[in-house]
Every structure is written in structure tokens, then in C-alpha cells.
């Protein structure tokens, strides 16, 4: 090794750098858009922010207890419409300033401030009414109504008042988004190439990993080779076709990451002929999901404990909201598809379907990063449509355009969009199917609007009992399986891969790094 080290120095990499303790480096599919918790747009944002901030209350990943590192004791006040928080002492912000009740109330006020255009704050505005700091260590949070389990509703990250000099209108492009000040176990700073985390021992945190680095994994093959080669110590989302390599290695451990995700093909029901429900149902029968799954994800039919299970509605099959009386279309049924298209006024000329004399051809897009998890799925879908006589032009959409244009309903010149949604404990799908208006239906991809669906979603929102809410979503499931704004494909589990030198790496559902204090890296 002597010759090459000498050459390394010649190549400009100083030997000193090589000998210092290496940082624990892990790959994410993409870099976080922001480290400001109010503007988390993707799952990678949530995971990175969990290292830098403390949520007021969180669920322990081990026994799911509702715990808080910031609140020492609490009691209900104002007859249940308020909760008085006695804060823990000895907690500092990453810049050394003390954590006080003013910070908690500043965060609540910032979320309620209309100058903070954050979709996440929007969610809290109909629950939180305000906050009054009684003393440096006591704050009272006011709710708009009496709620069950009030602590469950206070899962937001607390922001430092002094970092914004008290201005509660927080805009996404402040320097805070790249260099935040939090109370979490790690002090984070977003560089151009990744995010660097530095441990910050605190009254309520004692991280054992000194330095950590988040990198963006471009090529999945390079990522797995780098992991096997110990150039990187972890990969957050391992694509199904690489999981066997990880399981077969002695130096790697495949860890489960509890994230409820399901895949879909959104249909532009505003554009003819897709505005006709029978056409959408025909497309649903044209897709052979079993073949799609086998070819792109590699799951054989009938395989037990498969990470990928078919769905017929907007929920994962194990969820109580899933209407189990609505079967998934596992195999294609060309006969039924043809009958429906004929009924919708189309005719097949020379093996190609025509609508009003024009050959039917759809423009289909997919978020590019899904190609890593299900390689070539877009081509397989378009080939299946092609075989059934429907033409298609297919495009891969940059991840960034997906966030800025697809989700916000701007890609209206597309006919079909392949995507995926991820959920935590809350499986509220109102934002996906509600008619898009101010504050509602913010993720309604093709601005789908259907009266019956809006009624059911409203019924879910105002349901006074669980049974009413569940019935509403069961009916919604059946209605969507019939009206098909989406072709529902499947749910797919997420797995992470970490080297065995990383110990005590308990992975929390959805937020991932909640138990980071127990992580150790003996690299």
C-alpha cells in the first residue's frame, strides 16, 4: 500500500485527511430541497430535518410510546381547549442560546401567520388557535376545539425565535433553509453536494456519531458497489432488484423501514376521450399488473411475503380504510376492455383504436427516480397499451419538475402520469382527490373533480365517529375503483441497507432518525 499512498499524496489528496476519523456517509435518492421543516416537500426532507430538529412529541420507534425530549410535564387547561407545557431545562439551540417557551410559541405563531406560505402549516391552522408563553419555561398552546389525545396533535418541529428575529412570516428561501439552527442531535448544513451533520451534545441528546454526511446517489449500481466497498456506509432506499445482493453479503444488513407507499397511474380525466369513465375502465383492464410486477420489480406470481402487493384503491391492503370487497385487477382482460371501448364509441381499425376518426394515442410521463425502483416500467406499460391497440408517447419527468409542476396540477398536457405516494400513520387522501381550490386538493395531479367524491371526502373530514370516517373511505375506495382518476397499481415496501460497522441503528417509521442517539459507527 506504500507505493500508492505516496502516489496519492502526489495526486493531491493529503495523507492527513485519510487518517482522520471518517464521517458516517449515507446515500439518499436525492438531496433535500430544504432543511426548513415548514417547507418539507419530499420524504428526504423529513428524514434530514429529524436529525436537526426536535418534534414537540414523537413516537418511540421501539415501543411506540408518545414521548417528548422538550416537554417535562404537561396538563390540560381551558377545559381541554388548551395544554400547558412545562419545558425541560438545560436544552440549548445549536448556536448555544437557551431553548425557551418563546420558541414554542413563535413556531405556533409562524405556522398561523398567513405570510408563511407553507403547505404543512396549512394542516395545523384548523387545529391550533395560538400560544401564550407564561414564563421562560412554560407555554400554553390553544386549540380551536377540544381534541382527543391533544399531545398527538403537537408533532411539529420547534423553530428558534432568535434565528428569525421574531418575524413570524417565514419564507422558503431564507438562509435558515440551508443552515438551520435546531435542538436535534446533529447540527446540519446544506452544502452544494450534500448535507454535513456535526454532532451537538445537548441536555437531552448525546449523539455517538461525531460526523455524518448525506450524499446523493446518482447511479444505483455505483451506490451498491460503494456500499460493498465501504466507500459509503448506508443507503436509505434499496431498489428491489439489489436487495438480494445486500442480503447475501456478510458485511451488510438489510433493515426494514416502515413507510406505507403505493404506486399509481394518474389519468387526465379532463381530456377526451379519457373524460369517459368507460375508457378509463378499459385502460384498467388492459394493464396486466402481474406481468408488470414480475418484469420491473422481479416478484414472481404467488410469491409469499412479497414486498409488492396489488391494490384496487388509494390505500395499502393492510389498512382498515382498504375496502376488501373491491378486487384488484391482477390480470389483463382484453375482452372486457374492448367491450368498454366500443361502448364508449370507439372502433378498432387495423388493430388500432380510433376515436372520432382519430387513432387514440396517449402521452404518458413518469417521475424519473421511480426508474431505479422499477426499471423500465414505463416501457412495459406502454408496450401493454400498444399490444391492446392504444398508442402512447412516453416521457421521464425530472424529479424537480414533478414537485413543481406535476403535483401542483400544471402538467395538464399529459394524459397519464405514473407516480407514487408515501404515508405515515395518517392515511388522509383528501389532498389527492378533492376538487382543487384554495387550501384543498393541493396534490390533485390532474385537477380531478367529481361531486360524489367531494361529498365522501367532506364526510370523512366532518365524521364524528371512526365508523363514519371508515365508511366514508370504504365508499370512496369503491367509487374511485369505479371512476378511476388513478389506475391503482400496488404497494411496495421500502428497505434500507447499512454496513455492519454501523451499530444500534434503530430505524423509526417515516421519520427514520428519531432514535439517532443510539446509533454508533465503529468505522
Amino acid at each position: 500500500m506504500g507505493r500508492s499512498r505516496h502516489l496519492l499524496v502526489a495526486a493531491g489528496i493529503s495523507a492527513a485527511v485519510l487518517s482522520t476519523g471518517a464521517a458516517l456517509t449515507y446515500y439518499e435518492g436525492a438531496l433535500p430541497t430544504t432543511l426548513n421543516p415548514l417547507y418539507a416537500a419530499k420524504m428526504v426532507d423529513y428524514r434530514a430535518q429529524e436529525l436537526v430538529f426536535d418534534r414537540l412529541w414523537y413516537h418511540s420507534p421501539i415501543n411506540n410510546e408518545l414521548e417528548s425530549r422538550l416537554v417535562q410535564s404537561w396538563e390540560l387547561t381551558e377545559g381541554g381547549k388548551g395544554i400547558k407545557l412545562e419545558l425541560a431545562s438545560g436544552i440549548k439551540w445549536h448556536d448555544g442560546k437557551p431553548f425557551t417557551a418563546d420558541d414554542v410559541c413563535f413556531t405556533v405563531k409562524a405556522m398561523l401567520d398567513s405570510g408563511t406560505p407553507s403547505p404543512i402549516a396549512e394542516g395545523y391552522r384548523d387545529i391550533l388557535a395560538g400560544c401564550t408563553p407564561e414564563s421562560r419555561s412554560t407555554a400554553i398552546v390553544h386549540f380551536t376545539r377540544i381534541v382527543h389525545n391533544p399531545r398527538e396533535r403537537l408533532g411539529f418541529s420547534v423553530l428558534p425565535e432568535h434565528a428569525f428575529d421574531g418575524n413570524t412570516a417565514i419564507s422558503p428561501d431564507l438562509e435558515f433553509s440551508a443552515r438551520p439552527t435546531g435542538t436535534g442531535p446533529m447540527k446540519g448544513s446544506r452544502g452544494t453536494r450534500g448535507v454535513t451533520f456535526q454532532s451537538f451534545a445537548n441536555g437531552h441528546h448525546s449523539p455517538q456519531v461525531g460526523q455524518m454526511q448525506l450524499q446523493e446517489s446518482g447511479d444505483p449500481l455505483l451506490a451498491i458497489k460503494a456500499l460493498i466497498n465501504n466507500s459509503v456506509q448506508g443507503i436509505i432506499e434499496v431498489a428491489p432488484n439489489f436487495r438480494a445482493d445486500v442480503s447475501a453479503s456478510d458485511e451488510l444488513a438489510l433493515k426494514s423501514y416502515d413507510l406505507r407507499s403505493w404506486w399509481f397511474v394518474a389519468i387526465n380525466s379532463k381530456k377526451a376521450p379519457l373524460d369517459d369513465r368507460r375508457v378509463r375502465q378499459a385502460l384498467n383492464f388492459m394493464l396486466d399488473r402481474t406481468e408488470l410486477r414480475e418484469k420491473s420489480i422481479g416478484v414472481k406470481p404467488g410469491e409469499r411475503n412479497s414486498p409488492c402487493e396489488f391494490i384496487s384503491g388509494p390505500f395499502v391492503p393492510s389498512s382498515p380504510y382498504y375496502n376488501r370487497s373491491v378486487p384488484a385487477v391482477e390480470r389483463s382482460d382484453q375482452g372486457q376492455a374492448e367491450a368498454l371501448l366500443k361502448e364508449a364509441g370507439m372502433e378498432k381499425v387495423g388493430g388500432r383504436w380510433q376515436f372520432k376518426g382519430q387513432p387514440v394515442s396517449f402521452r404518458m410521463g413518469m417521475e424519473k427516480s421511480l426508474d431505479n425502483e422499477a426499471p423500465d416500467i414505463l416501457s412495459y406499460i406502454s408496450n401493454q397499451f400498444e399490444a391492446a391497440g392504444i398508442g402512447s408517447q412516453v416521457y421521464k419527468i425530472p424529479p424537480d419538475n414533478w414537485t413543481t409542476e406535476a403535483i401542483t396540477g400544471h402538467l395538464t398536457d399529459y394524459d397519464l402520469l405514473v407516480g407514487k405516494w408515501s404515508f405515515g400513520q395518517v392515511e388522509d387522501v383528501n389532498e389527492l382527490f378533492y376538487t382543487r381550490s384554495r387550501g384543498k386538493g393541493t396534490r390533485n395531479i390532474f385537477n380531478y373533480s367529481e361531486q360524489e367524491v367531494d361529498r365522501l371526502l367532506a364526510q370523512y373530514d366532518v365524521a364524528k365517529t371512526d365508523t363514519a370516517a371508515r365508511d366514508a373511505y370504504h365508499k370512496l375506495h369503491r367509487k374511485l375503483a369505479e371512476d378511476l382518476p388513478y389506475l391503482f397499481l400496488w404497494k411496495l415496501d421500502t428497505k434500507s441497507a447499512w454496513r455492519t460497522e454501523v451499530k444500534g441503528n434503530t430505524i423509526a417509521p417515516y421519520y427514520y432518525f428519531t432514535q439517532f442517539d443510539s446509533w454508533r459507527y465503529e468505522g
Partner: protein
Amino acid sequence: MPRQVAILFTVISLGVLLVFAFHAPDRWTVMAEAEPYASPLVLPPFGADGRGRPLTDYAMQGAHIVSLPAVVAGLLVTFLGVVGGLVRCMGSARVESVVAGLREVVGALPRMVVILVVAILMPLEWRSLMALAIVWALLAAPGAMDEAASVAGRLGGARFVEALRAHGFSRVRIYLYHVVALNLRPVVVRQGAETLMQVVFLEVALSFLALAAGEPSFTHNEATTKSWADLLYQGYQSIAMDVPSAHALVLGLLLVAVTAVAAVSISSAARAR
């Protein structure tokens, strides 16, 4: 290189590219036809990729992407070169200074910067190589016009035309045959051939960058079309990560070489006698 050999090489190389381009499947065949990374011996003629699909489709579709835009850009530069030369022959100083000024402005910025700014402004569905190829040609044109003008200048410019007029040749014949065909041909054809090659390299570069950055390409719709950059990308993996895809790298470099041979042989075929 003797002229006949140059013409032969031109015909062969252009022929290969155009045949590939013509037979390119318009839909990406995802049917595996062999073992992953099958060598050319197992799956002639070029072997298979990581999912058992023939590399010939990569070569053909890549040729299909670049052929038309590259030829159009080459012809555009050739045409503008001829215009530059003829303008010098007309001896109009004002037009010449306009061309010189244009050359300064256009030549001021690195071409890739201009290409990227144009690429950012193209909406997603207009993304194609043609627009970028034309921009590249317009960026290369002032250089070609300048060189053609200097050739025309060495001829004697307007005085050369007057001298031939004295011999009784018609103005059109002088410009087309004497000026362009005989004297400007080598320069403008070489400039056109070089632009043709550069446009191919531009496509490979942009697609390769998009692959390395995990972004969709600016030049083609990689959901249905593969580019030569995909070959080079798999090839790089064989060097850096022991993936058995060296035959993809060889094919990629071979296709790049064929393009270069085409450009060089066109230039030498059109060389002055």
C-alpha cells in the same frame, strides 16, 4: 489521403450511420434476447446490455437521434460559409464589418453555456436535438464565414470576379462554379463536416451528463430511445466497477470513431485537387 479513398470512406461511414438511423426501432424493445451482458459472440453482432437487450438497438436509435440534426447543422454552416465567401467577393465593406461584429459577439461566449441556457428555456416536450443543433450551427457559422471570406480574399475578392467577367463568364457561373465550387468548396465543406461531428459529440455529451446526474435527457426522450451515451455509460461501469460491459464501451467508441472518420473523409474528399 488520396481522394478516391476519402470518397470510399465517406460513403462507408455515412452509409453505416444512415442505415443504422433508418432501421432504428421507434419503440424501446424491452424484450430480453440473451443473458445480461452477453458478449458479441453469444449475441451477434454487438452483444447485450445489463438486461439482455441487444446493443444494436442502442446503436441504431443513437444514430437515429443524431443523423438528421447533424446533417442539417452541417449544411447550415456550409451554406453560411458560402454566403460569407460570396459577401467578400461582392466587396461590400459594411456587410463584412457586420459579419465581423457578429463573430465577435457570438464567439464571445463558450458554446456550451449558450446551449445550456437555450436548453433550460425549452419546455419539456420540445426537448430535441434539432433545436440545439441549429443553435450550435449558428454559433459556428461566423467562424466558417470568416474563414471562407479570407479564402475569397486571397483569391482577390471583387477583382477576381471582375477579371473573370472580362473573360465573358456569366456572373452566376463565376459565383457558383469558380468561386464556390472550385475555391470555397474545401473550406466550407470541412467546416460543415466538423459541425456535423461536433453536433454528434454534443448529443453524446448532454445525454451522458443527464445519465450521470440521473435526469431525463435534453436531446431525446430516453423513455423510448437510447443514445450512444448509454453505451458509453455502461462502458464506463466496466472500467470503474468490474461490470462485464466492456463490449458496450468498445461499440460506443467505435460509433464515435465512425462519425469522426465520416467528418475527416468528407473534408478530404472535398479537398482542393
